C-alpha cells in the first residue's frame, strides 16, 4: 500500500500525483520505487476524480450495523 499512501499524501498536500512526485515521496520514506508500479498507478489514476472517490470512500458504506448489545 506504500504507493497508495504516497499518492494520497500528495493529494492531501495539494500536489499532483505524477511519477516524479511519487518517486520523491517514496524515496523519502526509504522505499526504492518500482518504476512499473509508479507508472501503473499514475496511469490507473488518470481520469479519476480523487476528491470524489475519497468522499465516497470516507462515507461508511450503508449505515453502521445496528447492534443489539
Amino acid at each position: 500500500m506504500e504507493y497508495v499512501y504516497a499518492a494520497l499524501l500528495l493529494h492531501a498536500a495539494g500536489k499532483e500525483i505524477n511519477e516524479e512526485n511519487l518517486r520523491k515521496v517514496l524515496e523519502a520514506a526509504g522505499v526504492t520505487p518500482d518504476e512499473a508500479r509508479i507508472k501503473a498507478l499514475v496511469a490507473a489514476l488518470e481520469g479519476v476524480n480523487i476528491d470524489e472517490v475519497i468522499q465516497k470512500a470516507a462515507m461508511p458504506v450503508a449505515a453502521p450495523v445496528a447492534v443489539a448489545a
Partner: protein
Amino acid sequence: MAHVAEWKRKEVEELTRVIKSYPVIALVDVAGVPAYPLSKMRDKFRGKAIIRVSRNTLIEIAIKRAAQELGKPELAKLADYIQGGAAILATDINPFKLYKLLEESKTPAPAKPGAVVTKDVVIPGGPTPIAPGPLVGEMQALGIPARIEKGKVTIQNDYTVLKAGGVITEQLARILNALGIEPLEVGLNLLAVYEDGIVYTPGVLAIDPSEYINMLQQAYVHAFNLSVNTAYPTKQTIEAIIQKAFLGAKNVAVEAGYVTKETVEDIFGRALRAVLLIAQNLPGELLDEKTKE
C-alpha cells in the same frame, strides 16, 4: 356365524365390500362428533371418500375378512387401532393428505368441563361484552388480567389460561363460554390408515410442512452452491458465477493494492479509513479541518 343376526351379517358384508374397493382404508374416531358436523364432513368428502359408522366389533370382523380375501395380512393389523366410536373411511387420498384434510376440517367447539384441550387456550386482550359482575372476580382468581373499564370488563393483555393437554374446569368453561371462546375442536380423529401393505399412525402422518420447505430450500442451496463453486453455469446461477469471479478478482486487486478503476475506491477507502481510525486517537489540535468535519 350361525347365531349372528341377519343385519349384522349384512353390515359386515357391506363394510368388507367397501374396504375391498378402496386402496386407502382409514379408521377414524367419531365419538363426540355430533350428527350435524358428521354430515357436513360427509358432504365435504363426497366423491372422494366413503365414511361408514358402525360397531367396533363389526368393523374388526370386516377388516380381517377383507384382509384375508384380498390376501393382504398387513391390512388385518389395522383392526388393532380400533377404539372409541370407530368408523371406516375408505378413499383414494394419500394417507398424509387425508390426515391433513381431517385436521383442517376440524371445527371449533365450546368449552366443556372435563374436556382436554389440544392447543393452548389464549384469552385475547381487549374489551369484552361482559358486564361487571361476579365473573370478574373469578377471572382474576385464575390470573386473567380482567378490569372494568367504561362499564365493561376489559382484558388487559393476551393471557394463556390453559396449556395444551390441560383439562377444562367447570369455572373456566363458564368464563370461556361467557367470553365466546371456543377452545375445543370437533372433527374426525384419525386412528390409523392402511395403504399398500403399510399401516400409518397419526404420529407418522403429522408431517410438518415447514420442515419440507426447509429441506427444499436446503436442496436448492446445495444445487446453487455446487453450480457456483464448480463454475458449472445454469440459468439460475450464471449471474452469481460472474459475480463470484468478479468479486474474487476485485478482492485480489484490492488486497494487492493494484489500482484499477474498479478497485480505486476500495483501495483509497482502506487507506482513508485507516487514517480516520488513527485520527480518532489523536488529540484535537492535530486534526485539520478536513478531519474535523
